[in-house]
């Protein structure tokens, strides 16, 4: 899958927003600095010019206009850094080193002004600068202007502002580069996620997100999503498996049913048979199919759920007592001895009905495989470990040690156990019930060979202590 254009990624957009904010605040900052420093330059010039004016006015006060004229000539040709101009009442220049008042309205006074200075330096080059000055009117009506060159101060301010602008541009460029870098990394990390999600969406439930092993939040998310995918895959698998199992279990009885109905129909049409027994048999077959269906459904549900939805505490011995009461007569009917040794207060958590069914299925098998004259024993007890066990022991042929493992495996693999009709389903249910309770199933040899019977089988359900 293609990476999205870098400029469309969220980190890049965030970078842009951040940069815009940064640029705006930097501009405001610069404007503030400019106003503050440029103002300072003018204020200081104003102060200096003010002092010079004061001193000249003191001269005027002492010696009148001639003394002032004299002082201004001296000062203008001296090395003072000021610009001087003395004008008559109509603002016509009298003396000074300025050609005319820089004020637009030369007769205005008192007044302040910023103006351009164009001068030639000793080498003859034209130097442009900026000046600041004040103009006052003397008591006798003449006008006096004093200014100063504020070019160097201004230039310093402008250099600082330019420097800050330059730094701002560099910061913005670096920021953009950083944003692109981060976006590219995020896009790469997310590309793994997107690839996996697209694969799952396309039907490949085995797709997983690579975990980079750097234990960052992407890894955390990847591990979480992989766990989820695993669960989904397992559930889908068990659903499919349940579907296959149902199809497998129902196909043969349904086929048989169909065949019988077909033959019966032919016979009835030919007039050799009475339809009633055929219909009755068909009904029985259908009942058997429904029963199988119910059992397979229960197993699949348990397997898909993986655990009991609302576990409740109950006494295993009570359940065992109930089921043994149900089966005792069956044993007697088959000429088997039935014994029950039930402990007390053996509390486990789970589903009472399912456990009862599991015990019933074990007793079913025991009665089925134990010959006449044999014995079936149901026991419940607490182990030293605190675990609770329910065991069914019979004196039937048992299962050879080598096969026990295999049989247990078959319990796990639903469909394989199903190849043996009848009991296979019962034990599959036991296995499913056991798994859903976090319990385990143990197979053991029975009491041994005696009178041509045996060695027998001991099936044990071991529940964790409640």
């Amino acid at each position: 899958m293609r990476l999205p254009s870098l400029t469309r990624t969220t980190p890049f957009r965030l970078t842009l927003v951040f940069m815009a904010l940064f640029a705006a605040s930097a501009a405001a900052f610069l404007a503030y600095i400019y106003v503050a420093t440029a103002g300072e330059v003018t204020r200081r010039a104003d102060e200096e010019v003010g002092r010079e004016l004061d001193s000249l006015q003191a001269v005027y006060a002492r010696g009148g206009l001639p003394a002032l004229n004299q002082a201004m000539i001296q000062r203008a040709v001296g090395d003072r850094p000021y610009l001087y101009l003395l004008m008559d009442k109509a603002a016509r220049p009298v003396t000074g080193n300025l050609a005319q008042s820089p004020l637009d309205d030369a007769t205005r006074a008192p007044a302040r002004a910023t103006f351009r200075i164009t001068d030639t330096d000793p080498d003859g080059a034209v130097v442009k600068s900026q000046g600041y000055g004040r103009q006052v009117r003397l008591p006798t009506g003449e006008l006096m202007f004093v200014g100063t060159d504020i070019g160097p101060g201004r230039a310093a301010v402008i250099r600082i502002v330019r420097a800050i602008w330059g730094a701002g541009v560099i910061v913005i460029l670096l920021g953009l580069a950083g944003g692109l870098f981060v976006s590219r990394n995020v896009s790469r990390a997310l590309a793994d996620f997107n690839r996996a999600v697209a694969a799952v969406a396309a039907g490949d439930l085995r797709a997983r997100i690579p975990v980079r092993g750097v234990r960052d939040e992407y890894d955390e998310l990847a591990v979480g999503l992989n766990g989820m995918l695993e669960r989904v895959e397992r559930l889908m698998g068990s659903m499919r498996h349940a579907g296959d199992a149902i199809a497998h279990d129902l196909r043969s009885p349904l086929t048989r049913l169909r065949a019988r109905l077909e033959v019966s129909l032919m016979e009835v049409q030919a007039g050799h048979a009475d339809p009633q027994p055929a219909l009755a048999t068909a009904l029985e077959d259908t009942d058997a199919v429904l029963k199988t269906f119910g059992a397979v459904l229960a197993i699949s549900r348990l397997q898909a759920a993986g655990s009991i939805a609302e576990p409740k505490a109950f006494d295993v011995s009570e359940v065992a007592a109930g089921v043994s009461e149900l089966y005792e007569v069956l044993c007697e009917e088959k000429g088997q001895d039935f014994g029950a040794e039930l402990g007390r207060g053996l509390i486990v958590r789970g589903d009472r009905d399912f456990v009862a069914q599991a015990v019933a299925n074990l007793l079913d098998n025991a009665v089925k495989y134990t010959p006449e004259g044999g014995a079936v024993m149901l026991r419940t007890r607490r182990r030293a470990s605190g675990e609770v066990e329910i065991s069914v022991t019979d004196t039937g042929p048992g299962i050879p040690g080598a096969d026990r493992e295999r049989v247990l495996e078959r319990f796990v693999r639903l469909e394989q156990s199903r190849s043996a009709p009848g009991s296979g389903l019962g034990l599959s249910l036991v296995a499913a019930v056991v798994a859903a309770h976090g319990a385990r199933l143990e197979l053991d040899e029975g009491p041994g060979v005696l009178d041509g019977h045996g060695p027998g089988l001991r099936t044990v359900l071991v529940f964790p202590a409640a």
Partner: protein
Amino acid sequence: MRILVVEDDAEAAQAMCRGLVEAGHTCITAVDGVKGLEAARGGGGGFDVMVVDRMMPNMDGVTLVQTLRREGDNTPVLFLSALGEVDDRVKGLQAGADDYLVKPYAFPELIARVDALARRRETGSVHTLLKVGELEMDLISRGVTRAGKAIDLQPREFQLLEYLMRHAGQSVTRTMLLEEVWHYHFDPQTNVIDVHISRLRAKIDKDFDRPMLQTVRGAGYRLDG
């Protein structure tokens, strides 16, 4: 009996009705919860039993039954559901249903349960003495006699016979017996119920010419007076 079948699968409803009519009942169908509620409330009401599917469009079975119960309608209700979990059964019964049957079901099972529900309504009064033909059961002293002759029964046999006597003349299925007498909601692999029945039969029918406890092919058992 007048039976209302509320079921959204029209074909299933038709088949069910044919069977119910065959069994001697009158059957009316409704295709969803809302229609079912209308039929139950309507002038033509007065049903003996209602068979209600749980999952239906417009109004599900649970809501339908809850509504009827709130309105004071106590017609026995048999829930039908494709959900077989014990929890669903409990929820259905809590909603006010009287019995619960999981699809797919055998038709005799349905008939037997519908009969049992209708009968339960008729015999609302409390009896301390049950009497079916020659058979008498004293629920206080827990004594059972047939034609005056005492029959000794184990506690479970007594409960089994009590249930059969309360449903005398009706078919009861093995599943119903397992649910009502043993309180188990699963199908045993072998028909253990048959063994218990044959024991009981030995005790009540052995010394008499006329057997009272009948096997009903394809359905279960029936105690005849």
